[in-house]
Every structure is written in C-alpha cells, then in structure tokens.
C-alpha cells in the first residue's frame, strides 16, 4: 500500500502546477487506509439489499423483511472470541426485540478456507447448539460485508424501514455495548438504546461507535 502511495506521489510531483502540489499535500493528510478495505456505509445511507443462503439452504433477503419495522444486522462468526462473548447478547436482542418488529439477522463473512470453523456445516451446528432464533447467513463472496463496510466481528447495524419506499435506512453502526467483559452493570447498550429510540419515533442518541474485534477473514486474492 505504501509503495502505491509512493508511486502515485512521484507521478504527481513530476508535474509542476500549484494544484498538483496542493493535491499531493491533501493526499498526505488523509489517514492511511488500505485501499482494498471496504469503505464504510454511513448512518443515514440506504441499507444495501442482499440475498444470502442461511444454514438451512433457505434464501434470505432484506426485501423479505418488508413487514418488519427494522432489522438488527450483525456480522459475526464462530471463531472470534469477541464475537463469541457477544453471542448470548445477540440472542437476547432477538428475544427482546423481534416481537417489537426488530428481528436479528446474523451474517458470517469469514472465508472458511482461512478459518475452517466458519464453514457452513459449522455454522449449522452453531445454530442448532445455541438455538439461534434468527437466520445465520453465509456471505460466501463477502459482498455483503463489503457493501456494508463491515470490517470485523462483531459489527452491528440497526436498520429501520424507510418512511417511503421499500428499503431500510441505517440508523446505527458499531458495537452492541461498551462492555465486552460484562464487568459494568451500568454499561451503555448502544443497540438496545438505538432501537428504543426508533420505536419511540426518535433518532438514536448515539449512532456510531467503534470497538475492538477480529478482522473479517478476507479471501486472499
């Protein structure tokens, strides 16, 4: 990545205009981002539709949730200890909010060639062992993770049905709460608070957070 930047800068510097110099200076100020990582979907964006297979080989799409008030979309997996810490909380979110119109959809975008324990068979076993009451979708091409800009597990998106039209808008992106270790009884439960706000016809107070997680295991090109 740094070599690409260097090559680009050398080309620019060979031109002599002030505009080129300013462009170069602006480039240097942009935080270094690996160019092949997905750009983030932002709060307020239309939620990208998707169609993925679940662990029962059923096709699941966002458009199939047109009757729901919203969706709690969580990128998770079988292997990341942080995702595993949150598994019970994800199940609890579905138990609590699906009856209010906000069911969970879980997506696993990890490449099973890199982490065999994230294979569809292992996902099927997980659904059965933990009695997930929600679909656990296989993002085989990793296109959904890229569309949403998901970079790690767990990574949660709260979607709300758009006021007009068939789609959903993204209302919250980030951590489920601020207490992975469950040490703080007065933890801030970001996803719950976001949904409670939306159910009360207001916008969430906190719409974006970042937390530690494991990188999504991208396919090697």
């Amino acid at each position, binding site marked *: *990545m*740094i*070599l690409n930047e*260097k090559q680009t800068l050398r080309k620019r510097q060979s031109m002599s205009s002030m505009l080129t110099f300013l462009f170069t200076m602006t480039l240097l100020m942009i*935080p*270094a*981002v*690996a160019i092949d*990582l997905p750009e*983030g979907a932002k709060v307020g964006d239309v939620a990208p539709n998707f169609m993925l297979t679940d662990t029962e080989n059923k096709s699941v799409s966002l458009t199939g949730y047109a009757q729901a008030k919203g969706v709690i979309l969580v990128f998770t997996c079988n*292997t990341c*200890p*942080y995702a595993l810490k949150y598994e019970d909380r994800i199940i609890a979110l579905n138990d609590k909010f699906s009856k209010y119109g906000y069911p969970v959809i879980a997506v696993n975008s990890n490449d099973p060639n890199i982490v065999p324990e994230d294979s569809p068979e292992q996902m099927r076993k997980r659904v059965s062992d933990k009695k997930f009451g929600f679909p656990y979708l296989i993002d085989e091409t990793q296109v959904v993770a890229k569309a949403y800009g998901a*970079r*790690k597990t767990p*990574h949660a998106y709260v979607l709300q049905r758009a006021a007009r039209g068939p789609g959903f808008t993204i209302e919250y992106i980030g951590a489920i709460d601020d207490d*992975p*270790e469950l*040490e703080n009884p007065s933890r801030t439960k970001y996803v719950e608070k976001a949904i409670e706000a939306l159910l009360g016809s207001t916008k969430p107070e906190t719409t974006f957070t*970042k*937390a*530690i*997680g*494991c*990188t*999504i295991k991208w396919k090697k090109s």
Partner: protein
Amino acid sequence: MKLLHQLVLFVLLTVGALAQPCIVDVSTLNQRLIGATDTTFVVNLWATWCKPCVAELPNFEHLSRQMSGTPVKVLLVSVDARKDSSTKVGAFVLKHGITSETALLWPVDVDAIDSSWSGAIPATLIVQGARRVFYEREFTFEELKDTVDAFIKKASDKQ
C-alpha cells in the same frame, strides 16, 4: 527452609512484576510516540485471544532484535481486557519469551489511535514524530521489514 521459601516467593513476585505489562491510556501512549521525535515506533496492536495477532508476533520480535541499536523501537500494545493484564498478557509474555516492550491499552479509544481504524486487530501503527501511518492488516516478516524501511526512507528523502 523459611529462607528458601522467602527466596522462591521473592523470585516469583519479581518475575511476575516484570512480566506484567504497563497499563497505559491512549493519551499517554500518544505522548510517548510523538514526544520521542528521533525514534520510529512500530506499534503492533494485538491480543492474546487473537490468533492471527499471535501468529505474526514473532515477526515483530524478529524486527525488534534486528533493529536493536537503531532508532526503531517495537512496542507490542495489547488490547486484552484490563483484568487479564497479568494473568493472560503477562503469562503470555513469560511463556513466549517476548523481549519487545509490551503494554496494555486501557481504555481503548479506537479513533484516538487512528481515525481510519475500525477497531479490528491485528493492526500496526508506525510513528515518527508527527508522521503516522496506520495498517489494519497482518504482516509477514518481509512485508513488515519493507514497510518500515520505506517509512524510514520517506523521512530521509524529505530532509
């Protein structure tokens, strides 16, 4: 016998104390990184529970040994839970004979490390004075060495 017990206890406590990483917050870490302007810090963000992080740690250790005596300093900054600092991180450092300086970051303010960081690990930050480049990825030893060399060369190119 009592003396022997005391000696054993002393040794265990000392080793334990040496193994326990310092707990630092982001502001303290940044002050150190930015303050020592002649040093190029290679800060690897990892955790004992992160498999790919643990897999690439030897590459950072190798770099640290290779760069010993130069103004390049490797810092292994763990984002393990604070309660695990001695039990998990300290124990890990001891078990694997880690020689690079290790610290535990608490609380983890993702944006204050780098605004492009999603919070995913492993990740590596290279800092020299005001220059910072952030990588949200794993490194082989060759890739790490090339990246650090390029970072240093860029600094000397400017001068």
